[in-house]
């Protein structure tokens, strides 16, 4: 027996929370699933030191606290079968049948290889932020932040609140692009206010545009980085180096379900119609899985998807808000477009596949991603090509191939689990 519910929402970030709340408020029985130990997604990640902002707590209460919503934290969707999902948490695997599905799987960071990027102490920019919120020891540490986009500011602010000494923020985009972006922010007053707050908070941190980290150095961990910018090359000492080149949509679950994708730069996003419907019947998608758009976009898309999945009418005003938010995303993409030289930092000796230790030189000679994988093991490891696949696509080595199950490394016991378990067993399971 497979226990059923009306709607399954995958992802409890801003998009998924809004979707669950909207669907539940129309009387649907909703199961909300997230692999992280706590709800909130990326932007509202619970901070071990500072908790969560009020708006996040409200959104979580409105969704996970709704009597129609069963919230499964620390639970990952690992495979799909017709009309049902295979899930696993720390203890067990089980199946869950659904009437409709909302994919709110968010985004991950685009991490590009450069010499030294495998040293301990080198993280993503959002990666550093996430680790900081988990309680990573930062007090008194010199942190250098680089890459591209507004996430650099958010990461710097979080690091500083956790006691780090942020020695600089280095944005690859040129000064004029960044200024044009800032000058256009008045169209999104909320964003403008947020940017101003962050700038004030980080007033003492040097901010450089047109500046790229070319190499990380250190023996057992990072101790410094070479930076190339308008003033030529310089070496900056640091204890932690956080480099992120923006975000890319997490489309793997949509792919397994057979949903059509469309290009987002060198990457892919889930294709959706005006009411967030994907190409598969009764499967909806919302938030950054449908393209990088930021938190406002995620919330309104989640709201629309939740209503649409519940079969409720979608107010026009929501659609208009979504379109405005998407326009912000387009502006971001345009102004923080990656310069060509960030794609040329890795040399033939630089590791590209961190799971299998394959160098860029080894894969460069192959024109086909599958051939490269068979010949070098690139992408065959535990991350299933999530890191090297994104990097290789950005470096112009062709898109990643299709997705094979499982979605994440999965206990064999879960894959072998007979179709018996019921979600009602998991109610009340809150570790």
């Amino acid at each position: 027996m497979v226990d059923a519910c009306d709607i399954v929402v995958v992802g409890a970030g801003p998009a998924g929370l809004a979707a669950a709340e909207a669907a539940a408020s129309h009387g649907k029985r909703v199961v909300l699933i997230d692999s992280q130990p706590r709800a909130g997604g990326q932007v509202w990640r619970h901070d071990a030191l500072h908790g969560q902002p009020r708006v996040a707590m409200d959104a979580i209460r409105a969704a996970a606290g709704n009597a129609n919503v069963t919230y499964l934290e620390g639970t990952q969707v690992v495979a799909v079968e017709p009309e049902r999902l295979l899930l696993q948490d720390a203890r067990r695997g089980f199946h869950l049948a659904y009437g409709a599905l909302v994919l709110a799987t968010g985004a991950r960071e685009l991490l590009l290889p450069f010499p030294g990027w495998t040293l301990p102490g080198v993280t993503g920019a959002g990666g550093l932020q996430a680790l900081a919120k988990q309680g990573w020891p930062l007090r008194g540490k010199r942190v250098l932040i680089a890459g591209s986009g507004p996430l650099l500011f958010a990461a710097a602010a979080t690091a500083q609140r956790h006691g780090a000494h942020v020695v600089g923020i280095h944005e690859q985009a040129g000064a004029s692009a960044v200024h044009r972006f800032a000058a256009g922010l008045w169209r999104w007053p909320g964003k403008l206010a947020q940017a101003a707050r962050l700038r004030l908070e980080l007033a003492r941190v040097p901010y450089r545009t047109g500046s790229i980290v070319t190499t990380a150095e250190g023996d057992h961990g990072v101790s410094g980085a070479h930076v190339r910018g308008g003033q030529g090359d310089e070496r900056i000492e640091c204890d932690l180096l956080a480099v992120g080149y923006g975000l890319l949509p997490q489309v793997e679950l949509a792919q397994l379900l057979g949903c059509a994708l469309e290009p987002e730069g060198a990457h892919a996003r889930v294709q959706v119609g005006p009411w967030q419907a994907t190409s598969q019947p009764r499967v909806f998608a919302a938030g950054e899985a449908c393209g990088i758009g930021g938190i406002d976009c995620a919330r309104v898309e989640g709201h629309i998807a939740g209503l649409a999945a519940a079969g409720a009418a979608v107010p026009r005003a929501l659609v208009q808000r979504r379109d405005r938010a998407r326009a912000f995303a387009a502006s971001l993409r345009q102004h923080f477009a990656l310069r060509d030289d960030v794609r040329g930092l890795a040399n033939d000796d630089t590791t590209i596949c961190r799971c299998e230790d394959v160098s860029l030189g080894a894969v460069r000679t192959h024109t086909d991603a599958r051939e490269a994988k068979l010949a070098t093991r690139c992408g065959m490891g535990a991350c299933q090509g999530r890191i090297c696949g994104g990097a290789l696509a950005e470096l112009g080595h062709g898109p990643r191939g299709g997705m094979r199950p499982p979605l994440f490394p999965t206990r064999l016991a879960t894959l072998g689990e007979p179709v018996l378990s019921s979600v009602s067993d998991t109610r009340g399971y809150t570790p």
Partner: protein
Amino acid sequence: MKMSTVRLTINGLRVHVPAGISVATAIALVGQPFRHSVTGEPRAPLCGMGVCFECRVRIDGVAQQRACQRVVNPGMRVETDG
């Protein structure tokens, strides 16, 4: 507000760490190294969000667990080069 603590072992060391932090963070707090790559290079967490698998450890005897995705629990046994 006084922070409660959790006791666990990391690479055989008994340690006290603040409750609510991730296993990855606990390892960093006590200064233990993370995993070695297949060719023996030292590695440490990269993404913080469960996608890079650089933070894998053995927890209570089960290998290949992502330390950034697990909150510390009393009595947990964590080994970093499993």
